[in-house]
């Protein structure tokens, strides 16, 4: 049976697509669903006095209530989905792209170089994302201080002199995004590497070689199309996993700027403080929690259904 029809036969696959579609829709329509306050753009919009410490329940014009300091939950939720979606997609796509090319190349050249390249990739597997993030941000901070600038709240202030490569990089690239890309390409490389090694033995690649095709041409024409499918399964799961990790690191205040994670961190004392309760201030807890969980589930389900319908039959 054809793959697309097979894919749409199960309800789980429908559901995962539907959920992802909903997130995409919210992300695109964010300016219409919850317009920015022109005075303070950004995902956190104040709808009252900033001195108010207690979260207030939903009321007219504030459909999901507020966090401490009168930050609108609904607004942050809507803009947070744009943030999460772009973060997850960029990380997954970049690491997939790099990993696929790396794996294809190392599999194709084979021999010593190929083995060495895979050894390097395996070494990366022993590196935890949290350490990568901390390391990158500290490099940034140390560089700023060493060059006479001031490092405050993870940003550079009062900086004089020419900007170095790493400063430029970290000022324009999210450090968490960078460290997650650097630390999540290895599964793609391993996967594609093994596929390519198997494929190079097959007749059609041998024939292409015999025809005098260049390495680049063979990889591009024959090897990549055959290995993108399984890589897509990994990528779909990565989108969800990466966003959940981003929210986690934001919540524990290690860096990272997930809007949903930060919402939970802001409401934390009212959920977990003395006499705190999950239900009393449900609007500070449930919306961001559900947003993160459902986001992770949707992409994971998409990965599962892709792997089921494409590769196991």
């Amino acid at each position, binding site marked *: 049976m054809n793959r697309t029809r097979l894919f749409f036969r199960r309800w789980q696959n429908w559901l995962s697509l539907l959920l992802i579609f909903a997130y995409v829709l919210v992300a695109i329509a964010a300016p219409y669903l919850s317009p920015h306050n022109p005075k303070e753009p950004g995902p956190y919009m104040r709808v009252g006095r900033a001195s108010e410490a207690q979260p207030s329940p939903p009321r007219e014009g504030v459909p999901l209530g507020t966090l401490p300091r009168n930050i609108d939950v609904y607004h942050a939720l809507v803009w947070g989905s744009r943030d999460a979606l772009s973060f997850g997609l960029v990380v997954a796509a970049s690491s997939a792209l790099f990993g696929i090319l790396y794996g294809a190349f190392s599999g194709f050249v084979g021999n010593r170089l190929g083995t060495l390249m895979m050894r390097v990739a395996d070494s990366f597997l*022993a590196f935890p994302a949290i350490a990568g993030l901390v390391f990158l941000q500290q490099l940034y901070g140390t560089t700023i201080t060493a060059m006479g600038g001031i490092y405050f709240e993870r940003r550079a202030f009062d900086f004089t002199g020419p900007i170095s490569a790493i400063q430029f990089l970290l000022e324009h690239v999210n450090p968490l995004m960078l460290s997650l890309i650097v630390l999540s390409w290895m599964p793609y490389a391993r996967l594609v590497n093994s596929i390519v090694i198997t494929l190079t033995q097959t007749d059609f690649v041998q024939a292409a070689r015999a025809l005098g095709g260049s390495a680049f041409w063979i990889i591009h024409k024959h090897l990549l199309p055959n290995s993108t499918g399984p890589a897509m399964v990994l990528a779909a799961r990565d989108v969800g996993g990466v966003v959940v990790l981003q*929210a986690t690191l934001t919540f524990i205040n290690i860096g990272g700027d997930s809007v949903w994670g930060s919402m939970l961190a802001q409401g934390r004392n009212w959920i977990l403080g003395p006499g705190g309760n999950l239900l009393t201030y449900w609007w500070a807890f449930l919306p961001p929690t559900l947003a993160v969980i459902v986001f992770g589930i949707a992409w994971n389900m998409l990965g599962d259904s892709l792997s089921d319908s494409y590769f196991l039959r």
Partner: protein
Amino acid sequence: MPPFLQFVIRRFMAIPISLLVITMILYGGVMLTPPEARSSLYLPETRRNLTEEQLERLQEIIIKRYHLRDPYLVQYALWARTLFEGTWGYSPTLNEYVLPALLRRTPATLELALYSLLLLIPSGLVSGVMAGWRRRGLFDRGFRFLAFLSTSTPQFILAIVLLSIFYINLNWFAPGRVGLSYRLETSEASFIAYTGMLTIDSLLNGRIDIMGDVFRHLAMPVFTLSIYHWATLGRVARVSVMGEEKKEYVIAARARGLMERRIVWKHIFHNTLTPSLTSMTLSAASIVTGVFVAEIIYDINGISSIILSAMSGAPDAPAALGFAIYSVIIILLLMFMLDVLQAILDPRVREGVLKT
């Protein structure tokens, strides 16, 4: 030398190679910064008493001494040597040297990781095999539902829920390592710290009450950590059992009239170990990241606490770099242990490694 020991030694020798690659990459990152910033890796404890001018002169001396303007390989070699002999630099936010700070906090982390692994490996393997053997049965359905729930609940959200219910409302369990009154007792001189792990120490000191309290504090982080990886491990075990029941050795065992239970636990079980433990080896890094996250959320003074201060205050490159290297070493050791465990448990792997 017995061949198995040879394998263990050979596998152990792979650790320095991975470490070499990773430290080279890390130092490659450090190379992106200007030499003045790099000199902070070597600044001694006395830096706090220096004036601005003296500090600059000191930086200049360090740059000369460690050849910080020379090519990458020279610098890397000099820096790597200090890793073996030195104290991994002085951390201004911790007010102490990095390596002793890490070593002192290791038992707390180790304790948490150890109990989680002890809980999740057996339970993951057993429940996965049981679910896979009776596929689509009641147990399988229950397992898949629970596994789905636990893999889709992020660790920190589970922690919020657990803390809110079991700490704030019921007060059954608590965050931290040990209760306040016991914390004073465990830091007294009469309480001998044999291992630094409070559960073992309290037992050796004959204080069952302290041990109970430590477990009361360990319950939530251990549960949070294990449940996610329990589900991942169980799923791999379940899938690897599913393919087995049609295999010839199972049919042969049936024909010999073996009991079903014996077939599963004596024959099939061994075949699921390799894929399961391999998947754990691959996710070793995420397990350790999980340990750090659990430590931070549950306020356990483990090795991740050295980056907490570094991330909130002034930049602290020695702490960040030391933390990165130290956690890589932990992960490599964890991978090593899982590989050896696999070789001990799986006869095929054992024969495979012994032949080569």
